[in-house]
């Protein structure tokens, strides 16, 4: 049958005011973020404390590990060193984990209303930002306790947050898109992020990576992010150029790959939900 029929290329066009669509996106994003944040810790006794506890527990675990194994920390107190790395790292793992099922959990909306589907993983990433801010308070307390000098370098934080969010979003939408069709991708996410931890300078400093491997190592977008946070928070220095630039580059490449894939897949989400 398909041999004789000439198919028209599939297209769907809805002509309605463009500004309206943009405000629609913003309103929905806000509504979803508020919903995610307020409902996340509902029915849990510790509630919002989890936002603090998660990186804290990991930090304590790493400190115990350091009791057995010698891990360098560039002369910074290890508590500060590990926490400053865990701060962006927990954000990354949590937002990637939240992105994965974001399409499936919003099935009811997706089946009924046409929206740019990116809004769901984007809301998941943005809602995780709330936890990031919470654990950032702990970071501030630690910095005051250890009397870390602060400076103008802190102004880099917004840029670093954007880069961190973009990297998480790039990985997250790929998993969300593929995971909607094959749940295996969602199940594999924890293993992916665990493996990723080993190639990211969270526990150990970038300086302990052999010199000849460093440029390849820096292709990991999280390297630039974490190193950036460390230098602006702990050393009051502007981030080193090379890791940051490479990180931005790979994030852009990753986004350039995963976004079109997500776009392509997103038209068929409603079919499988």
């Amino acid at each position, binding site marked *: 049958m398909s041999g004789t029929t000439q198919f028209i290329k*599939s297209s769907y*066009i809805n002509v309605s005011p463009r500004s309206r669509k943009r*405000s*629609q996106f913003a*309103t*929905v994003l*806000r509504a979803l973020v508020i919903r995610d944040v307020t409902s996340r810790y509902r029915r849990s006794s510790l509630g919002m404390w989890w936002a603090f506890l998660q990186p804290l527990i990991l930090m304590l675990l790493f400190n115990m590990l350091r009791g057995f194994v010698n891990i360098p920390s560039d002369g910074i107190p290890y508590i500060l060193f590990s926490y400053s790395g865990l701060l962006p790292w927990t954000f990354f793992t949590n937002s990637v984990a939240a992105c994965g099922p974001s399409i499936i959990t919003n099935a009811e909306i997706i089946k009924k209303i046409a929206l740019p589907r990116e809004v769901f993983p984007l809301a998941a990433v943005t809602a995780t930002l709330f936890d990031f801010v919470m654990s950032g308070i702990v970071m501030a307390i630690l910095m005051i306790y250890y009397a870390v000098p602060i400076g103008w370098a802190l102004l880099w934080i917004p840029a670093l947050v954007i880069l961190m969010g973009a990297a998480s979003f790039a990985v997250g939408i790929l998993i969300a898109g593929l995971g909607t069709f094959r749940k295996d991708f969602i199940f594999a996410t924890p293993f992916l992020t665990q493996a990723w931890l080993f190639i990211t300078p969270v526990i150990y400093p970038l300086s302990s990576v052999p010199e000849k491997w460093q440029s390849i190592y820096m292709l990991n977008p999280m390297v630039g992010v974490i190193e950036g946070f460390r230098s602006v928070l702990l050393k009051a220095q502007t981030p080193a150029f090379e890791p940051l630039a490479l990180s931005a580059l790979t994030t852009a490449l990753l986004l350039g790959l995963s976004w079109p894939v997500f776009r392509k897949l997103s*038209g068929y989400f409603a079919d499988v939900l």
Partner: protein
Amino acid sequence: MSDVTIRIEGLWKRYGLPVPELVRKSVLAAKKIFGSKNDFLNETWALRDINLEVRKGETLGIVGRNGAGKSTLLKVLAGVTAPTHGKVEIFGRIFPMIELNAGLHMELTGRENVRLLGAVMGLAKDEIEEKLPGIEDFCELGSWFDQPVRMYSSGMLGRLGFGVAVNIQSDVVLIDETFAVGDLKFQNKSLARVKEMRESGATILLVSHSLETLQFVAKRGILLEQGQLISDGTSLEAINAYEKLVFRSEQQRLEHRVRNRISSEDVYIYNARLFDENGESIKEVISGEPFGIEVDLHLNRALEKPMFSMGLLNAAGILCKWNISEEDGLEASGEPNRYILKIWYPENRLANGAYEAHFATRDATSFETLERIAGIVSFAVVGPKRARGIVAGTCEWRLTPVLEGDTPNGKPAIG
């Protein structure tokens, strides 16, 4: 052609991700070789080659049997699912009311859901707040409006969704099976609002199994069958075509039913058919037109007085008509021979629907049953009238005003 709101060209839809032609062919080839029952390829089209144009202010009713593709068409129009092939263009804001409820999030209250839905529909915050009282009022949910949606009954969900749909100004409204919610008063209110929307220039697409509603609301109607658009005209035309389809399939179901047959070897039945005034074989009887049933049979032994009976049952299994040859004055002796038995129905009062005929042969003197066949023929009665029931035919209606003083008091005795 500026007043076209929806334009669909060569729309094909198959659920799931589109598979590239090369992959598809190789999987099919592999299937042929290994003969595996892999469901990797979904070969069924939900919609096939739909071409449709809907103008501004038109109300279009979509009818079709279950799985004909009605909901899929609405979903594609809503942009919820992408077309596999073909072009879909919609001009204006679209409000899809699909799958009855607007309960976007079960944990949120009705009010919060309306806000979220409004946001999703692209309304600004103050616009939503402005509309909220009207929506609250329309839904008639009372204090339930501030309860989490998960506690709602399906009727309440439908009312909430409908309340939002008719209170938000949109250019295209897609309504899927929502009219059956609420009591009669709510339904009437909804109908009135749909009419208002239509008059204000909104295009309305409506899927409903309530043909009555469709007929009153929609001016134009299309009929989908197995994903294909097979009829496009007034809503009445579409509904008639749909009923024909349903009766025909019911008839087929009757035909395929295992015959309940009691048989002695004394009678052979070769054939049975339905015929019209000209003696031509027919499959369908036109409502009110006379018809006949003919049975080709062979008597193997002599019967002193053969007696035949023919009963007509509708799809619900109700015996609508049953006649005995003896009572109707058939006088015949039954020598062993082949016979053609004709039963003519000059007054056809059968209502529209599917029927099957039950035939029996007896010996009137011994009252012995020689042959009994349930479903010897089956047929559909079709016609354009909306009247329902078991018996067709018009009645005479007259409305006369009652003069004051004729009634003892103004209170109605009923209701």
